[in-house]
């Protein structure tokens, strides 16, 4: 099905993307002309919702609809990102569903299949779920997956997450404030100076006192990380004394504890902890991983 090799697909842009998709699948046929959207006009396809794709380095979207007589339509969306890390990132935005063995990771639920492989994020949705649409969506997913020539790297930052107690479906990888606030409202202002140049992970951990939330940010330079740590301290703990060290734990609302730590290009934050020790232990564990992954 793939007419060119991997290099040709990359070079040919939307034409190459279209060739990831079959004309027919499981009785469904291509219904209309393909639609292609770029960073410039993605809002024509999804109103204001394009923001979340723009928050990653989204390059191009190809949309193809499949129809079958007396059956729900199936919409195929192929997103080309500039890096495999961002394909993973978009995939990690909404992780609700059942894991499926497809691509580098896949989730299915209610007629919606999403997976990523290489620089491609794929979203296949049946207008309504029936046994037939489910089979067709899965078959389409397999065809597309096979046509994507090679896998890509996950974000290296993921390796900094300690595995003990990690709720794997809770991990989100992103760059900017819009993604953070969609998952976890921290502040109106960009307290952590997040930008397209930063990488961030939000994850939850199970601990003795309940679930806690970890936010790990990596900056392009240590000075940027230091500035972000100071910005966060200044605003988030505006009612508390300025810390003298690069690590602090504070008791906040609801009797919870928040830990904040700066080290080189990293800022590590722990939220919703039941006690000080939990903040300190998780922060230390993350720092240990950072030193192994980014020596």
């Amino acid at each position, binding site marked *: 099905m793939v007419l060119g090799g991997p290099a040709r697909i990359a070079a040919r842009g939307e034409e190459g993307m279209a060739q990831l998709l079959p004309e027919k699948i499981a009785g469904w046929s291509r219904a209309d002309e393909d639609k292609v959207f770029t960073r410039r006009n993605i*809002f024509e*396809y*999804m*109103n*204001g*919702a*394009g*923001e*979340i794709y723009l928050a990653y380095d989204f390059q191009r979207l190809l949309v193809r609809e499949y129809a079958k007589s007396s059956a729900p339509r199936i919409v195929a969306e192929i997103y080309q990102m500039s890096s495999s890390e961002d394909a993973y990132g978009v995939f990690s*935005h*909404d992780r*609700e*569903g059942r894991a499926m063995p497809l691509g580098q990771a896949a989730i299915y*639920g*209610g*007629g*919606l299949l999403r997976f990523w492989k290489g620089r491609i994020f794929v*979203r296949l*949705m049946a207008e*309504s*779920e029936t046994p037939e649409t489910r089979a067709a969506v899965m078959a389409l997913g397999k065809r597309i997956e096979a046509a994507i020539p090679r896998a890509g790297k996950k974000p290296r930052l993921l390796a900094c997450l300690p595995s003990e107690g990690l709720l794997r479906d809770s991990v989100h990888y992103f760059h900017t404030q*819009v993604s953070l*606030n*969609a*998952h*976890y*409202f*921290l*502040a*109106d*202002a960009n*307290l952590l100076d997040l930008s397209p140049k930063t990488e961030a992970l939000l994850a939850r951990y199970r601990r003795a006192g309940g*679930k806690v939330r970890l936010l790990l940010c990596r900056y392009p330079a240590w000075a940027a990380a230091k500035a972000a740590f100071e910005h966060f301290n200044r*605003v*988030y703990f*505006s009612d508390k004394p300025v810390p003298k060290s690069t690590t602090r734990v504070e008791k*906040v*609302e*609801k009797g919870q504890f928040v830990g904040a730590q700066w080290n080189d290009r990293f800022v590590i934050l722990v939220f919703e902890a039941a006690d000080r020790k939990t903040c300190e232990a998780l922060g230390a564990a993350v720092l240990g991983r950072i030193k192994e992954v980014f020596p």
Partner: protein
Amino acid sequence: MKSHKPAENVTRRDFLRGAAYGTVGLALGLKGLEGQAAAQTGAPFAAEHPVSLVVLVRNERAVDASHNVNAQLVAEMIDTAVKALSSESDVAKAWQRYFRPQDVVGVKYTRCTSHRIHTEQAVIDAVGKRLAAAGLAGTRIKADDYGLPLRDCTALINVPTIKVHFLTGIAVSIKNYINFTGRESSYHHEGSVKLGEAWLLPDVKGKTRLIIVDALRPYFGLGPQINPLHRWDYKGILAGSDPVAVDTVCLRIAQTKRNLFKGEEWVISPPPKSIASADTVYRLGTSDPLKIKLIRLGWEKDMLV
């Protein structure tokens, strides 16, 4: 807004202790805030002397197991809601409380390509039919999402859906007018805090007489695109004339559903600042659950509010 800090410095901590975004935290049912409120002034949505009235009607058979909408039942639910809101026992009289035959009425419904959560056609049709029955000629009824002739309209009826929104917090009646601005994307910034401006545009201000919310199949998930697992058949219709009160009730329904779905508190994020600012900045209505009276009618199971 009732924030004690400059807006740009509002944090999660301020929000959780009720020091930001007015009564939205209360509407979200945040623990602690609700306990304080109940201890002082009573239960949310049970005001004895309400500033605003909202009617919720549900029918178990309004949507079937395949998610098909029963248009006849939906029309009946809308009739029931408008009668209760107007305190009229006759449907035609109830609608005549809001619209006159000489009005030109814009019916602003929702078509959302990214979520694919549209106002159901059954709801739009029922509204049009009742406007006609109230004496309006067909040419005086303008139904659309984009392109309503606002200048010609003497009255508006707002017919949104309910969807949790990753930029706005929640999108119901207040956000439904974002198209009127012609600058939709610019209103998504700062948590959509300025959405209330759309209601004060010269061709819009003061024209909204009725809000009918299609709560048949709301969306409570993350977005921006629909995940079918985050949509549920609530089988409801809401009616009101205060957009802030209506959205506040819908906020509570969506928040409660999220909590039930996850089995733990899953607070809508970002906070729906547009509701708070519509109340305290643009003065479009009240977001205080203690000042709203909710009339609940019909199917009670999993009403969530």
